[in-house]
């Protein structure tokens, strides 16, 4: 599979002419990477965006105890490294090749050149990034909302336990008293 083919498969690029697609292609560098290649290291500054053409890449994050948590498993057509490209902040996760992969990279400088040229391809590419961001935000929202709702449940549980603790001494005392008197 080629970069042009991968781009052509994205719904965002359907309306672009072959010339415009070639403009995007020219700005990107396609390479084959070996298993275990680290594209992005969590916490480091980043200045490139990546598009998977073939193969798989995993996104992981370090837990406090040093073990890695798997965040996502990405395949052909997926973009990664978006956050740092947009806000110039540090990388939020590590991304590693899972087996041999073909990946196209786009340095921020090239992206900005493309963008400033006001070429239709640049706008299209921006929209492709926006849609990927929306997918990512929806996925984390899901996780966060589940956590919040779980938490509410445990909060309610804790509150109920507190209530019963507060009432227990007197009622418990009476019960114990009753128990003792009946024994």
């Amino acid at each position, binding site marked *: 599979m080629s970069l042009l083919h991968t781009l052509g498969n994205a719904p965002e690029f359907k309306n672009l002419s072959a010339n415009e697609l070639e403009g995007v292609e020219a700005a990107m560098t396609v390479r084959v990477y070996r298993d275990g290649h680290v594209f992005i290291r969590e916490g480091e500054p980043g200045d490139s965006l990546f598009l998977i053409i073939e193969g798989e890449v995993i996104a992981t994050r370090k837990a406090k105890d040093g073990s890695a948590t798997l965040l996502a498993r990405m395949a052909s057509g997926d973009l990664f490294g978006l956050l740092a490209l947009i806000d110039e902040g540090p990388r939020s996760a590590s991304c590693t090749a899972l087996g041999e992969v073909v990946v196209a990279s786009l340095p921020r400088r090239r992206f900005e050149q493309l963008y400033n040229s006001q070429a*239709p391809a640049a706008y299209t590419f921006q929209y492709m990034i926006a849609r990927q961001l929306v997918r990512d935000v929806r996925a*984390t*929202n899901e996780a966060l909302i589940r956590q919040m709702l779980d*938490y509410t449940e445990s909060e309610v549980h804790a509150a109920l336990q507190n209530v019963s603790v507060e009432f227990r001494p007197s009622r418990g005392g009476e019960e114990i008293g009753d128990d003792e008197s009946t024994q």
Partner: protein
Amino acid sequence: MSLSPAQLLRRFPRLFPSGQEEDAETLLRLLNPLRLPAGEVLIERGDLSTSLYLLASGELETDLTEAGQRLILGQVKPGSWVGELALISPGTAAARIRTVKDSALLVLSHDAFSALRLEHPRVASGMLHTLMLTLVERLRSSNARVIRRLDSTTLQLTRPEADDAQGIL
């Protein structure tokens, strides 16, 4: 209420990175005004959401209700908006949004935005850039919070932050 382009630009400056009144005029043509009294539901959790809602005046609140429990995620004040996810890519609303005050909104549908992208790509792209920055901010804070929870074996109370109103719909 009908806003002039200059008023739209002043009320929502971040949507027009160019700062040009002409851009506000272009967008204004695609906006539909919507007035809602306090206490109305704008979007229910699980609804198909397809629009961006700019809040010109009033106040909105996003919340989650589950098993009789209500969790307030955040408030939206005038000059801000909800629905950036839906605008970019229509989908299911993750939370409920309702008015807490009488509110005046300006609605931009996904279809209208698609038209804007075709006819005025520079204006659409400027708006999109601001919305994307919001999403990135959202992702960074959400990721950190999800991970924090994955890390901790004991439950820790992480209070919903004020910015939870944005990036959820």
